[in-house]
């Protein structure tokens, strides 16, 4: 179900240049993300995927160019990055004003990630998957217009990863923020995103619309076709059978 009316942009990046010690990570880079659009960003390691996300999170600056993004943004990092000295529900409310910071609000957000009964737990008692879901609740409690996901599933075991991916998809569907998912997993990108963008040599090397019905099972000839195209762009000539 692709939306036919032209959506308003949530992210506009134009002529962006970012260099680290004379190496141009982003080189006249341009990208637009529409409101509510789920974009996955692929790239070889060291291609600048994370740098791009950090620029949108205002954790890094650009050297040149224009970057426009909504004020209300949230980030989920690869590690949960919870505050160890605060209970789960206080973590979820991080950054909200005192008036908005109520246990009820935290519990509502935690219920969405199926952790309602962990509100009073200490972060160190959570499993990796649970902690990452708390990080997701913390990101969504702000009702962001742009959700930045920096390889949020990479550190999870295979089964937890599938479950968490399904949860992200469900929450995106319910709240419809624009999403930028940085990942190195082609299947993950194809399963979740409306559009898959490959970052190659500081530019958009490939920009594929994933015109597959949801929910996607990760099978079918069209899926395989898209997969082959993406892997070719990433420099994996002959895709091996799915692991």
């Amino acid at each position: 179900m692709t939306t036919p009316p032209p959506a308003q942009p949530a992210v506009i990046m134009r002529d962006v240049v970012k260099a680290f010690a004379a190496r141009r990570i982003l080189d006249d880079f341009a990208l637009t993300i529409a409101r509510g659009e789920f974009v996955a960003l692929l790239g070889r390691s060291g291609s600048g995927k994370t740098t791009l996300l950090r620029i949108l999170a205002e954790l890094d600056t650009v050297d040149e160019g224009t970057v426009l993004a909504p004020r209300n943004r949230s980030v989920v990092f690869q590690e949960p990055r919870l505050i160890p000295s605060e209970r789960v529900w206080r973590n979820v409310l991080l950054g909200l004003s005192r008036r908005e910071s109520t246990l009820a609000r935290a519990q509502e957000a935690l219920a969405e990630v199926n952790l309602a009964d962990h509100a009073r737990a200490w972060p160190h008692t959570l499993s990796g998957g649970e902690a990452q879901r708390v990080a997701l609740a913390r990101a969504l409690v702000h009702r962001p217009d742009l959700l930045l996901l920096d390889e949020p599933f990479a550190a999870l075991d295979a089964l937890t990863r599938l479950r968490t991916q399904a949860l992200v998809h469900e929450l995106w569907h319910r709240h419809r923020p624009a999403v930028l998912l940085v990942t190195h997993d082609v299947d993950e990108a194809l399963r979740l995103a409306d559009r898959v963008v490959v970052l190659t040599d500081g530019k958009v090397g490939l920009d594929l619309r994933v015109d597959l019905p949801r929910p996607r099972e990760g099978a079918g000839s069209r899926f395989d076709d898209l997969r082959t195209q993406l892997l070719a762009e990433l420099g994996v000539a002959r895709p091996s059978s799915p692991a």
Partner: protein
Amino acid sequence: MTVQDSRRAPGELARDLPASDDPAAAERATLAAPLDLTDLSRRRNAPGRRAGLRRARWLLRGLLPVGLVIAWQWSTSSGLVPPTTLASPKSVLEAARDLIADGELQTALRVSAGRALTGLVIGAGIGVAAGLVAGLWKLGEELVDSTLQMLRTVPFIALIPLFVVWFGIGDTPKIVLIAVACVFPVYLNTFAGVRGVDRRLIEVGQVFGLSRTRMITRLVLPNALPSVLVGIRYAMGISLLALVAAEQINASSGLGALVMNASNQIRTDIVIVGVVVYALLGLLVDLVVRLLERLLLPWRPTIVKS
């Protein structure tokens, strides 16, 4: 031909066979060769000796101290060691009983513990404040750090004569000495704790728009607290050391006075009582810090388990 060969002689290893044109046949031959399997289950987890050692652990650990006390009692009661050199355990216990009975020990303990605690609170307070100023502000570091690092190299006991000149021989020089000794460990650990906060957590604070004040109260200070407590624990030990040093120079009251008077009268039994009380104070201090850590750091997994 090799296929038939390998079937007829399955015990042979593939590499011993003539080179085959057919890789599949070579692979089959390899798989058909028996492996020399070693029995890993033969070595069982023997419960006998280890468990016995564990059960006897307290007995074994107690052997040396009990033996020493017995040797102490025997050498003193047999007249081998005169009581002016070392009092017997029995007379030490009697001395302790007498000192407690007439309230002398309690009074001395109260006076000494008061000195140590006052000095510790002042010193730790200054240490925490200086550590926060230097840790949180670059300007503060420039102003405070180099000076404190320089003063740290002065052995605090060397200051006693100067403090006697400045503050006389009452409680003041002793408390000041203890405070000075306590500043440095607390300062160093507070500074390190504040500076050691995880950059990745700070980024989270930036992403979710925390103000600088909230960043400090919710991310930096709680993160520094374990380190501050390590500093205070260390300072508590040092405060006792400083107490003993200060009280032995000149004291008209307290544990030090008790011990020094006994020493002048060659009453080794009372001297030993004093030493034991100092040791017990050290033990008590350690207990207090553990309790503090448990109360203040409930989120730390290591604290919860210990």
